[in-house]
Each structure stands twice: as C-alpha cells, then as structure tokens.
C-alpha cells in the first residue's frame, strides 16, 4: 500500500538499500494542522521529504462562485484560522477595488488596528509553537496567556475570538469604544516589556539557539525562486513588505521599520533568523497600533453599499501583508452578484513547496524546526 502511495508521488521516491520510509503526520502535533510528510531516511538524516497536502481542501474558491459578494466574508475566516483578519481584509479590498467603493478614514484606521493586533496574536502562536515543537513547553504557555488578552479585545471589538468577520465591504462592522481603546493600550503597556522578558526566557537560551541557528538555511536566491513571502523572505535578508512595496489602506501614514534577518546567531537565512524576525515584527506592530490609536480620526466606520451588490465585468489583484506574508486575491467579476472566479494566493502554499529542497540532508528532528520556523498553517495551503 505504502509503495503504491509513493509511486503516485514521485518515481525517485523509492527506498534504497538501508533507507526506510517514515510517515510524519497527518496527526503529528508539530505539523500545525493536518499535513503529511513522506520521509525517506536512513534513521537520522533525511534523504528526501515529500510534503503531501490536500487533507484540508474545502474548495473555498469554488464555493465563492456560488456565494454573493457580501456573503462570502465568513468563508475567508476559514482560510487561515490564526490570522483571519488578513483574509477578511484582502477579500473586502478586492471587492471594494472592483466596485469602486471608498472606505471612510476611520474604517481604514480600525482595520489597521485590528490587523496589527491579529498579527501579534498570530506571531505569538507561531513563535510559541516553534519552541514547543522543539521541546520547550513553558514559553508556549506564556504566549497563550498574552494571546488570550488579544482574543478578549477581539471578542469585545467584533464578537468573535477566532473567526472575526470584522471587515465589511465598505468598512468594518463595529466601532471601537473607549473601553476597548483603554484595554488595547493597557495590553500594549503590559506586552512590550514582556517581549524582552520572553527573549531572556527563550530567544537567548543556549539550547534553543543551538537547535535553530545554522539549521535549514535558505539562501536569498532560493527564497525568491521559491516565492517565499513575509517573515520567511525577510528572514533571508530581503527587505520586501507589501505594506511598503504596494502600500494599501492607510499604512503609508505610519512609521515602522521592516525587520530583516541579519544572521543574528549564525548564518543569514537560518531558522533562528526567521524566528527572530517575527519577534522583532511584534514590536513594530505594537508601535503601529499605538500610532493608529493616537491619530484615530472621527467619522463613519462604513460606507453604505447596495444590499445586492453587482459588479460589472472587470478583474483585479489585491494583496496584503498577512502574518504569513503576502496574501493575494485575484477576483474576476462578470456583472452578476457573485464572483466569476476567485483565486486565493497564500504564504503557506509557497512556503510548503520549499520544504522538499531544504530538508535534504537535515536531521529528522530539524525538519520540525524547519516547519515551525516557516510558520505553515495547513488550511491556508489547501484552502
């Protein structure tokens, strides 16, 4: 059975001499969802690791063709459950661009606040889970505690803790109250010093560094060639951020740095760089949220749109910088009230395609570090 399965995947994936086939996943806890790797190994060193995806394929792109424009928003939450806000954002941005809808300034600012808080929450899980995967369970619990605060804020802001559906075509669903503003500021005051504490706890821990530094190095050429995006690309030292490269919303009004990998504890582009870029990004996100709260303009949060939104024949590609890098939507309309074609491009999809190349010659335990540092989320790969 297993041999048949392998022959489907690739002809060269047959074990040779002392090699054996190891099935990692789909229930392995460190694969971040249901992912399956067929690993050809001699017991220690990976000769080949073939990712086998598709366990979470729900056909969201096909569902979109049968769903009216405004009704599709809750589906976008399910693309990436750790950072649902970005999928909301990129989808409503695509519809707004096509239908030529202006978003009120306050709505744009609230989007930025919600997105950056979500980015922090997503990076907390990503960095915490990486530590958990390679054997340090304490940091994960600390990060979950911090993430709980963000979840509470999100619950107060949009009524949901994970699948937000906060964005609407033309704005956002609810306004931010003074109480929530205070809660956000209180959280930021509490959280920013915690990052340094966390660095002392795990980031500068000798064993942790040994497990990540100089492991699974992705060169700049490979990173561009395999289409890596977001923190994975920046971890290889390429300063590419959609918020700067193709500014959207009101991101051009905020002052923030783009952290890139510098070979913090070893070689440029190793797992530690990808990890540490995320830590640095959380600080930047905190600063963006502060700036947005300070300069939050008064006014409407949403423009009124027609109940039955119809868009004439056109097409566009919009992208945002999500927690996992560039997330894009290619939307084709044909004059009816639902999309003719919707293509969702996600960061995890391209990150997954590099695993086969980088994993060659790694230890089996280092594959876990690689997947953890790439921050792959399974439903985002399969959609």
């Amino acid at each position: 059975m297993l041999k048949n399965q392998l022959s489907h995947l690739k002809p060269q994936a047959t074990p040779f001499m002392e090699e054996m086939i190891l099935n990692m996943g789909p229930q392995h806890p460190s694969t971040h969802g249901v992912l399956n790797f067929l690993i050809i190994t001699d017991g220690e060193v990976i000769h080949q690791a073939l990712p086998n995806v598709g366990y979470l394929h729900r056909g969201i792109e096909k569902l979109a063709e049968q769903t009216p424009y405004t009704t599709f928003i809750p589906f976008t939450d399910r693309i990436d459950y750790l950072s649902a806000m970005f999928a909301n954002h990129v989808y409503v941005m695509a519809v707004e661009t096509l239908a030529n809808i202006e978003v009120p300034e306050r709505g744009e600012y609230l989007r930025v606040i919600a997105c950056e808080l979500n980015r922090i929450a997503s990076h907390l899980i990503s960095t915490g889970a990486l530590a958990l995967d390679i054997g340090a369970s304490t940091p994960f619990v600390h990060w979950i505690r911090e993430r709980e605060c963000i979840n509470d804020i999100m619950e107060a802001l949009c009524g949901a803790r994970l699948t937000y559906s906060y964005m609407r075509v033309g704005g956002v669903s609810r306004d931010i109250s003074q109480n929530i503003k205070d809660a956000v500021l209180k959280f930021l005051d509490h959280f920013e010093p915690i990052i340094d504490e966390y660095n002392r706890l795990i980031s500068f821990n000798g064993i942790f560094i040994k497990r990540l530094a100089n492991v699974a190095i992705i060169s700049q050429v490979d990173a561009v060639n395999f289409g890596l995006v977001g923190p994975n690309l920046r971890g290889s030292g390429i300063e590419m951020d959609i918020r700067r490269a193709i500014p959207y919303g009101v991101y051009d009004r905020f002052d923030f740095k783009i952290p890139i990998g510098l070979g913090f504890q070893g070689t440029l582009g190793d797992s530690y760089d990808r990890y540490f870029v995320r830590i640095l990004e959380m600080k930047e996100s905190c600063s963006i949220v502060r700036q947005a709260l300070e300069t939050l303009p008064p006014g409407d949060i949403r423009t009124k749109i027609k109940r039955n939104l119809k868009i004439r024949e056109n097409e566009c590609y919009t992208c945002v910088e999500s927690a996992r890098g560039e997330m894009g939507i290619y939307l084709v309309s044909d004059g009816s009230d639902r999309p003719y074609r919707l293509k969702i491009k996600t960061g995890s999809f391209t990150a997954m395609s590099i695993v086969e190349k980088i994993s060659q010659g790694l230890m089996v335990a280092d594959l876990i570090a690689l997947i953890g540092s790439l921050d792959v989320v399974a439903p985002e790969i399969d959609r």
Partner: protein
Amino acid sequence: MTYKGYDILALRFGKDTIIYCDKTLNPYIEVSSDQIQEVCIYIRYHPELKFSFFFSLSGVDYPEKNRITLVYHLFSMKLKTLCVLKASVNRNHPELESIESVWKTAGWFEREIHDLLGVNFIRHSNMKRLLLPDDWVGYPLRKDYKEPLLYHDMETSRDKPS
C-alpha cells in the same frame, strides 16, 4: 505594468504577438501560449524590468469562448509595479509550456491548476494532482463540473445535513 516596461517587451517580441490591454483595473499583457516561457525568462532577467517576484498563477475557465486563460501575477522591486501576463489555451486540449524552470514556485501553482482545471504543463517535473486524490474524476474549477456521486463507494453528498 507601466508603458515603459511594455515598450521594452514589445521591442523584443513585437507588438503583434504581445498585446497590451488596459480595459481592466490592472492592465495586462496578452501573450501567445507557446511564447510564455520566453517572455517569462526575458521579463525576469532583463536589467530594466527585473520582475523577480512570482506572486501567483491562476486559471480561469471560459466555456463559451472554449478556452482557459492562465493569469500570471509578477512583481518587480525595481519598478515597484505589478505585471499581469495572460495566456490562453484551448479548453479541449489545454497544453502549455511550464515555467517551473524560471520560478521554482510556479511548479506547485501549475500542479494546482492541473489538479483543479485540467491544464497540462509541458516539461513539468511532476505533473500530478496536488490537492485532490490521484484517482479523482473531473476538474472542479471548470464551470461545467459535476461532482461524482460516489467516490470509492462513499457518497459525496448528503440529503439531510445533520
């Protein structure tokens, strides 16, 4: 894509073979399907273009025109602009040159399109289904797709969702 970028391309390939169209929100360049690989290599490595970032590859099915259109989204840090390339193939014999050799990541996108739309990419290293099982019948993102009622004697739909 800017006019300047298009002019460089038109100089090399001729204005008849690659057609600039700005009726849509993102202007696109229509390329004939047998030239797509050449155009991609040129656009990626030309020192004044440098569209080195491959954003996405999508396929759109147009049954009434009997063709499938493949849409390439590329990005250049140098020009800070998006480039949209379009290539159409016949819906009955959808075949196209693979651009896996230009961007490695395109390989997976092409596999996904092969899986969901049934386009064959020539000289692809591993032209297998990516998301669906290997023995799945049909291409779901085609407009006339009908889901098979049974898969390995399992029903694919329920009368009363519980």
